[in-house]
């Protein structure tokens, strides 16, 4: 029997779940691995939360929808079609839930910057909060009509490719591109008077979103 250093048997090496791909994690989740599920949740929760919160303009609702998104992922894990990327799938779910929630609430598709002042009042009551959604830029984004706000956030905040957006929204690629462009131009218009002011007021930059 040869002595010497034991070489770990490759067959039994257990991979750290953090290193696994989304699809591999999902496979584990199907086998009731809750740790794998937590890893998956941590991977996507901040990205999705930023999207959902900015879509709904309400923190509580956003958390509910975020939770519901992950619950759906878990409940329908067998129905996932592997020809699509996992991220496409989870974005689809999140976007559908947002859309339904917005319809349900019958929010105004379009609300001027004035209306958002009311939200600021509400936002101040949140504990120890910096009024994250009350900056000029946030307000301007919030004022975009839903269709434009969706694609704008997906592109600029979540940094999805046009392809992914087309798949998640089930919209032709050309439509996505033109909507993004239109959204940007609307935003530009809204921000016109405020740019100089905002730029001078901005403090130390927070951590960029796409690192998450």
């Amino acid at each position, binding site marked *: 029997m040869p002595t010497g250093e034991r070489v770990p048997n490759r067959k039994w090496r257990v991979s750290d779940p953090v290193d696994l791909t989304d699809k591999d994690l999902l496979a584990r989740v199907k086998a009731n691995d809750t740790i794998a599920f937590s890893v998956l949740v*941590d991977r996507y929760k*901040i990205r999705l939360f930023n999207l959902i*919160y900015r879509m709904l303009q309400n923190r509580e609702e956003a*958390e509910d929808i975020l939770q519901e998104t992950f619950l759906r992922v878990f409940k329908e894990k067998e129905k996932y079609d592997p020809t699509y990327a996992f991220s496409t799938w989870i974005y689809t779910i999140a976007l559908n839930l947002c859309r339904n929630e917005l319809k349900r609430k019958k929010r105004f598709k379009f609300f001027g910057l004035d209306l958002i002042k009311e939200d600021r009042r509400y936002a101040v009551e949140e504990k120890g909060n910096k009024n994250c959604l009350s900056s000029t*830029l946030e307000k301007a984004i919030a004022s975009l009509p839903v269709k434009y706000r969706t694609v704008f956030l997906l592109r600029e*905040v979540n940094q999805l490719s046009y392809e992914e957006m087309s798949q998640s929204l089930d919209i032709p690629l050309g439509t996505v591109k033109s909507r993004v462009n239109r959204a*940007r131009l609307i935003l530009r218009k809204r921000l016109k008077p405020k740019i100089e002011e905002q*730029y001078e007021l901005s403090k130390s930059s927070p951590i960029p979103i796409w690192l998450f």
Partner: protein
Amino acid sequence: MNCRRVRQYLFGYFKQELPPEETEEVRVHLDSCPECAKEAKEIKKINFMLKDDLETLVPSTDFNEKLLAKIQMLPSETKEKDTRRWWVRLLLEVFPSVRWRWALAGAVSVIIFAYAVMFTQKQTSIRPEFYSQDAEKMEGQDLVNSPKVTDSLYQELLERVAQTSTLRDRAFIIDNFSFSASRGEDGRIQPEDLYKRFVIERRSPLNTQRGRGNHYVLPVVSTQPASQKVDY
């Protein structure tokens, strides 16, 4: 490229979303058009804002906990119900409601019961299978009824012979009770099929010959041992 078009492309230009020719066209235009150059600066600022000024929003710290708690509360997924045998599923599809199933069970049990009844009846009845058609040719024979014989099958045979119209008025000598089994194809005796062979012979008026007997083979169920031979 005119100013209006350039303004449409400015965002894409700074985000490197434009194909090379258009990128070049915009660049050239910006070099020469101060209005558009100013606009370009604004766009650049907006892009910076989008990078730097949007705060990263974070869900509450107990989010994962609450989510996992809800996951635990989901109805546990049992194994696929469709692992039931195909005939079970088919049956349940055809008879979905409980009432139908009881009716089906009732019908099935009735059928089984009826068959059992028929089957056992058949087995206890002994029907003489006439081996030979010569019975009708027999004339005026005395029925020998030996009291010594206790074999119940013999008794029964007598009864049946008496009942059988073609045999009734004729006398038969019944001889040679033998406990025989049928022969299988290879000539060997199969114990499963038990027969009693009754040799029914014709007694000639001259009491001389024993004619060749006509053998009546009766299938029996009972395993009564053969009685002794009857001598006549």
